[in-house]
């Protein structure tokens, strides 16, 4: 099949993470011929999302040693005056993987994921589940929360749910501050499928309901990624849910942070005067640039000192520093003000919190850009590795790449995700690390009437020198976990050797880690962890290009995910690289409407029949690989289903 690949492309992109995928889409939008390759058999690289079984496969693969020898096939492909730079084939970005299972595994051995076809998880992540969960989602291109309107009986139940959620939002604050948990015996009596009864075999069986993100990030509703999705019309490929609440860990308990006007109004934790001080502070400094006289004296102090000087009470300082600005304690005043401003400007665009989460997981986002790329003629090969770069001996420019079957593809530019770079090039690079934990739990960290909250929790650093832990808790209506479970992500910059050492103390404070089935009633104030995964991910986001030695000038590097909460770094990186390649071209202009496209056989640069051939047999089944313009409307329809 690889023989069907054209022998020449404008841009070859290796890696399907977010920045690479954005660049791929941007290049095809200006008519460049793009070959987008990933050695893995799934989209997204370290940005991917997996079903439960897909995640197991990923864990195994990460532990495996791969053959690092250069394939013999490519040796004959280089000419005399050409040099070869081999690619790295071992994924060294993930380390210290540890898995713990706390749920009952009695009958778990023989169970298989329902409907699992094979280990090709890329397939599974795109399967739409059709259970009757709350489905109202946000279409960001409309700039407001859209509520589904249909005439069917489901429409009715939707209505009723909406009413319930009204009451819930009004009442939710009543319980803040105290963790309310129904007694287990009661729960069992009332609810048949009580959280307590979930076993490991159920998780495996319902594994397709999970979409576990390798990186846990949300989209700021006015962040670069949302703006890009809207501008480029890529937003039509995806749906979002609004994060419903911002939480913090304060004085030993979890509290809801009042961050919008409605929250402040309803908050029971704040006194009247605190309400006014907080609102006044936030409203005033949302345009902090207009009042330089108010913060100038504190430009060299920390943001925290600045907050103290503005008569904010300790509670308010905590809320603003950790949950609104989300900056570390040692952040300078300007840094804090900027972060706070960004948070505040994002409020109210789609809801009462500034964050959006993509349905089916963050791994959807790179795929959406790949889809746009494919619609405009990009060619995709998954599970297809490149062996080496071919560099011209005189100009030192990269002329071509050679794949694992020895096929040579000429190209003008190569964009490569940094994990593929060989050791010789990265010898001088020092990386940071991100500590990650993924938990499947049986109930929410802060129960309210609704069991469908999407929460962001900032856990302040325990000691000086440590960093805050960002925790996100996803409910089943985000289509990332099975019913009656929650998917909890913990993320921080690593300060200790392993992710487990960094994060387990926090996990222990918030959750019950026990394999015992019958826990004392008073222990049931915390959610129970059913399954846990720890790992470290390499953070290459801060690595400057100069640190890579001997890289041809027309080879560009994309970094993996950074430790930040938003996605601005990846988008900015993609835009900067695109402009280095094509300084005078527009970055991701809006895609035209299907009805405005003129189909003219002579003008079409690539014949549909030619480009519609899936290049890789394994990717054949994936809808993402249909690269024809004509399939555009069809794929739209598929998505709509």
């Amino acid at each position: 099949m690889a023989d069907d690949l054209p022998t020449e492309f404008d841009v070859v992109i290796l890696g399907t993470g977010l920045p690479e995928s954005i660049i791929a889409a941007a290049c095809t939008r200006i008519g460049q011929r793009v070959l987008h390759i990933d050695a893995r058999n799934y989209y997204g690289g370290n940005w991917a999302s997996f079903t439960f079984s897909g995640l197991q496969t990923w864990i195994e693969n990460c532990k495996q040693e791969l053959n690092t020898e250069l394939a013999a096939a490519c040796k004959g492909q280089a000419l005399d005056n050409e040099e070869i730079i081999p690619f790295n084939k071992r994924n060294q970005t993930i380390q210290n993987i540890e898995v713990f299972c706390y749920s009952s595994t009695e009958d778990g051995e023989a169970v298989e994921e329902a409907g699992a076809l094979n280990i090709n998880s890329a397939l599974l992540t795109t399967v739409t589940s059709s259970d009757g969960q709350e489905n109202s989602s946000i279409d960001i291109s409309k700039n407001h929360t859209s509520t589904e309107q249909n005439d069917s009986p489901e429409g009715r139940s939707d209505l009723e749910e909406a009413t319930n959620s009204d009451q819930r939002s009004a009442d939710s604050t009543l319980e803040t501050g105290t963790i309310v948990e129904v007694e287990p015996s009661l729960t069992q009596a009332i609810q048949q499928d009580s959280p307590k009864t979930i076993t490991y075999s159920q998780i495996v069986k319902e594994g397709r309901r999970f979409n576990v993100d390798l990186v846990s990030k949300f989209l700021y509703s006015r962040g670069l990624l949302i703006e890009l999705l809207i501008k480029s019309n890529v937003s039509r490929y995806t749906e979002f849910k609004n994060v419903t609440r911002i939480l913090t860990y304060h004085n030993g308990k979890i509290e809801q942070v009042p961050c919008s006007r409605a929250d402040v109004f309803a908050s029971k934790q704040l006194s009247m005067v605190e309400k006014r001080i907080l609102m006044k502070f936030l409203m005033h400094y949302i345009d902090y640039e207009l009042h330089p006289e108010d913060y100038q004296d504190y430009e060299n102090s920390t943001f925290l000192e600045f907050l103290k000087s503005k008569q904010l009470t300790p509670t308010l300082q905590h809320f603003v520093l950790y949950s609104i600005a989300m900056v570390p304690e040692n952040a300078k005043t300007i840094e804090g003000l900027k972060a706070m401003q960004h948070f505040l400007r994002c409020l109210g665009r789609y809801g009462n919190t500034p964050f959006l989460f993509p349905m089916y997981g963050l791994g959807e986002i790179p795929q959406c850009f790949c889809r746009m790329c494919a619609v405009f003629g990009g060619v995709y090969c998954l599970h297809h590795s490149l062996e080496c770069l071919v560099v011209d001996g005189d100009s030192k420019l990269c002329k071509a790449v050679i794949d694992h079957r020895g096929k040579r593809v000429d190209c003008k530019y190569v964009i490569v995700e940094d994990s593929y770079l060989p050791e010789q090039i990265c010898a001088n690079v020092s990386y940071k690390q991100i500590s990650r934990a993924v938990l499947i739990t049986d109930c929410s960290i802060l129960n309210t009437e609704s069991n469908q909250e999407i929460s962001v929790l900032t856990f302040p650093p325990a000691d000086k020198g440590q960093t805050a832990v960002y925790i996100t808790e996803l409910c089943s209506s985000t289509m990332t976990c099975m019913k009656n479970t929650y998917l909890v992500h913990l993320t921080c910059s690593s300060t200790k050797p392993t992710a487990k050492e960094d994060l387990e103390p926090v996990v222990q404070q918030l959750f019950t880690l026990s394999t015992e089935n019958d826990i004392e009633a008073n222990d049931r104030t915390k959610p129970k962890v059913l399954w846990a995964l720890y790992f470290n991910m390499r953070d290459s986001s801060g690595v400057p290009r100069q640190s890579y030695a001997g890289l041809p000038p027309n080879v560009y590097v994309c970094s993996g995910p950074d430790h930040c909460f938003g996605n601005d770094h990846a988008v900015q990186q993609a835009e900067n690289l695109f402009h280095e390649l094509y300084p005078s071209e527009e970055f991701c202009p809006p895609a035209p409407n299907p009805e405005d496209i003129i189909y003219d056989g002579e003008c079409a640069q690539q014949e549909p029949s030619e480009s519609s051939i899936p290049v890789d047999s394994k990717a054949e089944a994936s809808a993402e690989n249909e690269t024809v313009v004509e399939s555009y409307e069809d794929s739209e329809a598929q998505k709509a289903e």
Partner: protein
Amino acid sequence: MHGRIKVKTTLEQQEAKRKEREKKLQLYVSATQAALHKRETGQLDKEALDLTAQILALNPDFASLWNLRREVFLQLQTDRSEEEMQSLCLGELTFLENCLRVSPKSYGTWYHRCWIMKIIPKPDWARELTLCNRFLEIDERNFHCWDYRRIVTQSSSVPLPEELEFTTSLIGKNFSNYSSWHYRSKLLPQIHPDPLRIGRVTEEALLNELELVQNAFFTDPNDQSAWFYHRWLLGRADHPVSIRCVMVSLDEPCVSVTFSHPVEVQEDLILFLNNRPIFVSWRTAGRKEKRSLFWVCDLPKECINDPCCQYNFQVLWKDGEAKKECILYPGRRESWFRDSATENEFFSLDLSEGKSNVLQQELKSCKDLQELEPDNKWCLLTIILLMRALDPLVYEKEALGYFETLKVVDPMRSGYYDDLRSKFQMENAILKMEYAESCLINLSKKGLTRLCHLEHLGQVTHMNLSANQLCALPSNLCMLRRLQVLEVDNNEVVRLEGLWNLPQLEELSLQFNKIQNVSDLQPLSSCPRLSVLHLHGNPLCEKADARTQLESLLPHVNTIHLSLI
């Protein structure tokens, strides 16, 4: 660059759009004509429904077509079974729902929905309620939907506490919602009625509401909806109409009656003399008003010709809805009986002790807020109102200080604040006069811009209005039947309509005002006892023949001063 996808140019797009629009317009016009033709020829059939449906789906504000639909439904009602009507109406409700999704604020559509729900054989009000809630979720301030929702809740008798809970939840989402606050003000007096005061709520409920509304204005003090609701919470009970004062004078001779509210009087105000009704004709003191606080009648001379006799006067309004007595003792020329402003607390709130503690708390938190938000006009105004409600005289000086701040922070409304302050100043002066049991009232140097509460001044003989900013003397000044001396020096008076028909007025001082013409003094000719008039410092004094003209206009005035004495 090579290889880009070809896209229609904007010109091509425009042309395509224009053609599409033209086609649409043609369809629209022909469908409209067909529908109207059907109406003219009386073909009220299902085809008419289909035709109008097409047009209304595009333009729901076409009232005639909604009417046509109603005519069709009335026609169908005559010959269709109940089941058929039910399914027709259900179809109509679905159609209406689709129309509302396109334009959720169309008057015609909501009205038609209401109409259909009235004729549908088996209405499903629960579904209507969910529909309303859904629409309010999308736009919590859609007042069309709020109106319809009230009809729905009435028809389906939703428990009121549930409704209150609903308004709470919407306010929780966004408290800038007049509709929701207003609905609360209608629900609370029904759920927690105060047994003593009509239209008010119990103290416990009031406390809860005050806390809720305080949350709102501490969160956003510039949002007026919460402040308006707060004002409603502090409002007085609605008192029924009463007669405040009855005054008898033998000099005219006449009887005057002052009401608590402006009323219209015809045959329903009856005067009894020693328990026998006597025929009199009532007139207002002014010349034109239909409704008035003040009514006066001439007494037939033959009724009161014996000065040594005691006369019992009684007035009865609307068969006893309001009444008052007044006794004229032997030898007296005049007499009055009236409600006291101090005893009845006309100018403060009628409060229990508990509630005035609540108000003290409110005042304290508003002052806290004002410290944080010194420029917030709503907060300043509320502080003043709270002080008035608690005790007008104790807080007099403090309140005047807040007025000054208020005029500085909100200069656009300084006129309004001046008028409000004038009102409070007069109320205070009236209270002080009554405490002093005096018939003199001194309102000089109060910065008055208007006069009010004159109905409380029936017994006043001397009034000093000097050194204020009055431009006119209002017509209800004639309620002051006993007024003998009136000083209005150093004002900006141009017109004198109010100085009309004051039976006792003897001396009038109008020095340093802006009276231009002799003819402006015309109303004074109706004051029979006027003998001294001070006009120094008015433009009219400059005129050469001023004195002659005045003497011919007011022959009964003995002394007219055109210059300083």
